[in-house]
């Protein structure tokens, strides 16, 4: 299995606040890596560094063959064709229908014809179970449905890696379940995924690798079962007991 993501000694500060303090991590093809940790431990920032949304201070990041740590001199567009990201706040385009939300990047960036793009939209909407909603506007959908559209929008670009940044944190338990179901299906289809999550049961059940971040560092990493059952550090033990 080859590494889709490889991070070495990553440092990142916002002003004097050291957010990432020497992170090293690998994500292999087809793996689901779940990142857990308290607020402010640098989980989201780490994810955002992976597709070049944040500039890094030092360290090396390779994602899908692109040296993302050298953000200014790489082709970000090519990177972003290969890396999809879904946010906590969905970030759908409110002025466009569900279908247009999905086809916009296909016609603009992948230069597909409208008919081809619509075909792709149909297939990804089916994947997330929203094929009947393509004429709707985002505001007419529930949070869970919006998030599923956001996932479909990313999937339409046929990415090699999907990043999920606390995608269920704004949803109630019922809607959370429908979004997690979509992610579970994706994982089973062999999508490479890195996610920041507070859904411990989900991470435990489905993640191949669990990463516990603390104070901007990868504090513990390993198979989820092991981390949950036999935490090696007091910080993870405390975190696990507070989350369960």
């Amino acid at each position, binding site marked *: 299995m080859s590494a889709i993501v490889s991070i070495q000694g990553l440092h990142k500060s916002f002003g004097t606040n050291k957010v990432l303090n020497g992170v090293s991590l690998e994500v292999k093809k087809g793996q689901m890596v779940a990142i857990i940790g308290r607020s402010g431990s640098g989980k989201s920032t780490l994810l955002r560094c992976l597709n070049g949304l944040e500039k890094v201070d030092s360290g090396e990041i390779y994602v899908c063959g692109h040296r993302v740590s050298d953000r200014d001199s790489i082709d970000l567009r090519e990177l972003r064709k290969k890396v999809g990201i879904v*946010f906590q706040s969905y970030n759908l*385009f409110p*002025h466009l229908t569900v279908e247009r939300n999905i086809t916009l990047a296909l016609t603009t960036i992948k230069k597909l014809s409208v008919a081809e793009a619509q075909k792709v939209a149909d297939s990804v909407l089916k994947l997330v179970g929203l094929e009947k909603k393509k004429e709707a506007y985002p505001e007419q959908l529930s949070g869970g449905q919006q998030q599923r559209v956001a996932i479909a929008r990313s999937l339409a*670009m046929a990415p090699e890696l999907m990043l999920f940044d606390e995608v269920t944190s704004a949803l109630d338990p019922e809607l959370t379940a429908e979004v997690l179901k979509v992610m579970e299906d994706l994982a089973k289809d062999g999508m490479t995924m890195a996610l920041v999550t507070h859904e411990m049961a989900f991470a435990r059940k489905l993640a191949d690798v669990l990463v516990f971040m603390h104070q901007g560092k990868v504090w513990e990493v390993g198979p989820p079962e092991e981390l949950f059952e036999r935490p090696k550090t007091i910080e993870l033990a405390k975190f696990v007991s507070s989350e369960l």
Partner: protein
Amino acid sequence: MNHFSFIHISYLLQAALWTIALSLIAFVGGGLFGFIIALLRTSRSTALRRLASGYIQIVQGIPLLVVLFIAYFGLSIAGFKLSALVAAAISFTIYCAAFLGEIWRGCIEAVPKTQWEASECLGFNRFEQLQKVILPQAARIAVPPTVGFMVQIVKNTSLASIIGFVDLSRAGQIINNSTFQPFTVFGVVALIYFCICYPLSSLSKSLERKLNVGHR
């Protein structure tokens, strides 16, 4: 004594056409340059942002009347003899560009940052982001303040009478000088202004409904 009559009304209506013409020039010219100013003001280059913001600061800090004086009297002494219409057109374009630029900058910035992020992550470049994601949303937000400003401009065109531009206000003054019926004359002038401005306001309301402003 000359009584206010139909001839005067037709003279006023003709002058109203000049008011409308100058307003249109102000919208189109000011809108075009204002759009550029708004884009510069929100650009990623610090130098361009400063340039645009300097322009806005200067124009907003000078009364329109003084801009008119500079364009008409100042430039004529400098050797450029402009007609009242051209001088007024230039002045209003300069003035509107600054205000519309600043209004539209606000509208562009009112589109949530996350929309930039989401479109960036899909691979859009800056131009595509603006064109397909940001500006369509900013345009909805922009309708009410833009129309509000347009109504102001229609009324402000009366300032151009000071450099001899015969607009609706100036025509009213001229007629009043011969008829001495200020209440009637200026009453009619006010009514005509209202008839120009009211449709604009109601247009704004229907546009707002159509574009679903504030419905996000």
